């Protein structure tokens, strides 16, 4: 049972390597295998989660080498994000079946699924890593596969966006590696708990600050926090839609999860006051909420809108981390999970619509909601969730963030958050207006057919989760509160 922890990440990673060989003769067989692996991953994560809820966090020493000599994996409340990874992963893999047939050339298809599996495996590994270098390796697994997946569909904008993404991502990864090197040089260890322990005795302040700065900057780029978000919109908008879903729902979360993992390393240093860093993060988060929403408002391209909305939503999460009170961090962390579900719903629904209609701007897509009623319902549910309308899943994060802002004695941030939420509402309203209440500009729109079942099913399932996830949200909230308490308690 406990051996499932290292196998959770290993299953998709090994399967990814086998996929091109297994599906060599028939590229489309890769789809079935990939979905099966995704389902397996979901099962494993479910078992791990059950154990977490029953017995609390648990560790695994890979190879039997006790930490800090070997690599430790740890499944704690923060790792519970694996559930989001697995859910979105399965949905995306299922959705890809029909989508990839049209959008990914046949010779690339097996490799495409292979990269998706690498991405998911890396994400799960990242969520469960308790070792700094293991964290880095998993991050690279995710990064390398993400860069390539952006360009998987072909097209000049996609290739350019992928390159831009690659350079930004590689520099940020390098910063993280640099910081890992410094921390290793200071403590001689790579195990995070051990590093935190030994860092408390380190007297040299300069290297510690440098490591903290490099980690923060690196993860901020990964999270596309506002002034460092420039790589994101093109990459997320020009990628194939299932890939956009993975990138926006899961991959950007690496940055915030990474921050949540490494900031506690520095909590034991009595000379180090983290308050200015928190303050800065809170401000950047608040600015990101509003700026991302404003930028989204200016877009005409459906997927670009969704991409900027991700910039804005990352702002929520970072604001939560920055306010650094238990309630605020609960809000931020629970939004990590729910934003994953919601944004995946939105990107997949948008993907289905763009795939069926052949247009991607709001003007061209006018009236498409009537032609694709079920996808439209799913998209609408996703929209209501992302604007945070109760009782959807999106409300919970907002609720706890607001409470947290008051708890921190910062009602100003609560007001900023609400202003951002209103802006977000406005730009999502444009989508619904265009899809439902405007006369079609293109006459082809009326002839658009509803998406095939293999696309509709994952979209509807995710949309339902956006609703039910809110109504039955006590589990995720409890886990987020647990993780927040650990963060606030200093590791």
């Amino acid at each position, binding site marked *: 049972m406990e051996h499932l922890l290292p196998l959770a990440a290993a299953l998709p990673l090994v399967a990814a390597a086998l996929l091109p060989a297994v599906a060599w003769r028939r590229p489309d067989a890769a789809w079935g295998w990939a979905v099966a692996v995704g389902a397996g991953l979901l099962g494993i994560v479910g078992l791990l989660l059950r154990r977490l809820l029953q017995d609390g966090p648990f560790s695994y020493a890979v190879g039997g080498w006790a930490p800090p000599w070997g690599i430790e994996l740890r499944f704690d409340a923060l790792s519970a994000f694996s559930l989001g990874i697995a859910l979105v992963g399965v949905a995306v893999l299922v959705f890809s079946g029909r989508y990839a047939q049209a959008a990914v050339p046949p010779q690339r298809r097996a490799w495409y699924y292979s990269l998706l599996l690498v991405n998911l495996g890396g994400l799960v590994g990242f969520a469960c890593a308790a070792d700094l270098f293991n964290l880095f390796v998993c991050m690279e697994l995710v990064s390398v596969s993400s860069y390539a997946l952006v360009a998987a569909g072909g097209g000049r904008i996609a290739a350019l966006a992928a390159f831009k993404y690659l350079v930004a991502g590689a520099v940020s990864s390098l910063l993280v590696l640099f910081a890992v090197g410094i921390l290793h040089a200071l403590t001689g260890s790579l195990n995070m708990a051990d590093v935190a322990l030994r860092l408390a005795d380190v007297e040299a302040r300069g290297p510690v600050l440098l490591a903290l700065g490099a980690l923060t900057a690196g993860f901020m780029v990964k999270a596309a926090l506002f002034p460092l978000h420039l790589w994101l919109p093109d990459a997320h908008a020009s990628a194939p839609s299932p890939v956009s879903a993975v990138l926006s729902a899961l991959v950007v979360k690496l940055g915030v999860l990474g921050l949540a993992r490494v900031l506690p390393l520095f909590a034991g240093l009595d000379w180090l006051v983290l308050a200015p860093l928190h303050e800065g993060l809170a401000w950047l988060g608040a600015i990101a909420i509003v700026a991302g929403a404003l930028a989204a408002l200016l877009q005409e391209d459906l997927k670009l809108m969704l991409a900027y909305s991700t910039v804005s939503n990352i702002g929520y999460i970072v604001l939560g981390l920055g306010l650094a009170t238990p309630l605020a961090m609960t809000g931020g962390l629970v939004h990590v999970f729910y934003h994953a579900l919601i944004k995946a719903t939105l990107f997949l629904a948008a993907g289905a619509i763009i795939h069926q209609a052949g247009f991607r701007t709001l003007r061209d897509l006018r009236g498409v909601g009537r032609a694709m009623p079920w996808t439209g319902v799913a998209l609408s549910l996703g929209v*209501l969730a992302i604007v945070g*309308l*109760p*009782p959807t899943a999106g*409300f*919970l994060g*907002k*609720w*706890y963030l*607001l*409470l947290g802002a*008051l*708890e921190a004695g910062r*009602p100003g941030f*609560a*007001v900023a958050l*609400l*202003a951002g*939420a*209103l802006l977000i*509402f406005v730009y999502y*309203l444009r989508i619904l*207006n265009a899809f*439902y*209440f*405007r*006369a079609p500009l293109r006459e082809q729109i009326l002839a658009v057919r509803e998406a095939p079942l293999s696309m509709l099913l994952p979209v509807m399932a995710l949309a339902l989760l956006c609703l039910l996830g*809110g*109504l*039955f*949200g*006590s589990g995720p*909230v*409890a886990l987020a509160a647990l993780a927040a308490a650990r963060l606030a308690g200093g590791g």
Partner: protein
Amino acid sequence: MEVLDIRVVLAPGISLLCALLVFVLGRHDGWRATFTLGAALIKLVLILTLLPGSLEGVVYVYRAFDFPPGIGIAFRVDGLGMFFALVSSTLWVLTTIYAIGYMRDQHDRVRFFGFFALCVSTTVGIAFAANLLTLLLFYELLTICTYPLVIHDETPAALKAGRKYLAYTLAGGALILLGTVLVQHLAGSLAFGTGGLLAGAAGQPLLPLAFVALVAGFGVKACLMPLHGWLPTAMVAPTPVSALLHAVAVVKAGVFGLLRVIYDVFGVELLAGLGYTSWLAALAAFTILAASFAALAQVNFKRRLAWSTISQLSYIVLGAALLTPFAALAAIVHIANQAFAKITMFFVAGAVERTTGRTELRELTGLGHVMPWTMTAFTIAALSFVGVPLFAGFVTKWYLSLGGLQAGAWWVVLLMLASALLNAAYWLPVVYRAWFQPPRGLEPGVREAPLLLLAPALVSAAYVLLLGVSTRVPGMPFSLAEAAVRFVSGIGAAP
């Protein structure tokens, strides 16, 4: 006494189910009418079965979901909620019948009736909400569900009105969310029924912010000046929608929310000490007068109705803000009085428009000769607004004046008189011209409105009369309002 009862959640659930059925199976006109009307009747009966208990002070509760954890979507039927639910579900039956007649041959009827049912579901949710968050939840859902109705025509004007409507109400919703968070922060709870959640939070620096946020948030839908701008614009909607907006659901949700804020969130005792409500009363008084003057200036029937609504709603706000038992009684009773009189007016306006194509007030001249029943309903409603004794409006004015005197605010009596004069100034000439001047420029063959449009108007007009004369009949709305006031904690005994 609190009693766990599933009927509490069934009532909004029926309308929700109806909405889903309409969306999925509603293409056939007959089926759709059956669903909508059937659900309306079943729900009315269901709520009526709760009435006897409510009259005796039984509070029915039900807890549905743990969202957000620790707070929960919970339902609770007290006298106030019961009163609102009863008014809205009675009116829903009438409006449904009317809408079936009115929307015949219109486009997108499935969407219309689906969202129509959703609106009523959320309205009952608002009435039965057991805590501020559940109230907010249904309040926001109401905003979303009315939007497709407001822009039903999909004309540029309708879309513009819809945008304005959303901008106002969503901003209001955000303010309420802020207020809710503040209350949760200050009081640690959001549940109604304690006679003042914030009673222990006196002196907190964030208290004024909470009051302003909540009052402004609910004040948007309650059309408290200067937050009323969306309502006249929203007149582009189909008439049943206007009726729904003005009488049944939206604006009433706003005033109902204000009543909850004053009686259940802050509590009469706390507010009496803080003195915020005198500002609110002054604002309401201003709104009553200013909106009446604005109504005088209108020549379009529906626009004058809109301004009249703004003015009338502030009666309720004023009644609540005075914090005395008589004033509270007036406020609660006026929810029904205004609703029935106003919906009569809208039914008439719609019937006239559908039958003769006329939308301006001066075009009503002489219509009494061709559409006597329609104009009878109109006249009853107009007299009620003026406040002629034996009509519903008089009851409000009477008790509001008494409440003002109880509070030592003699100016309320003057305000009532002034308002009565203004109402007379803008309704009675229309009545006069309709009955005592010959019709002009009517095409031959114009006659009484069809039954589906006329019957609801007559029924609601009859109800206006009933409300005016039944204040001492047990089991009638007035007695329910009395019961509700009796259980508003801290306000003292009602008469």
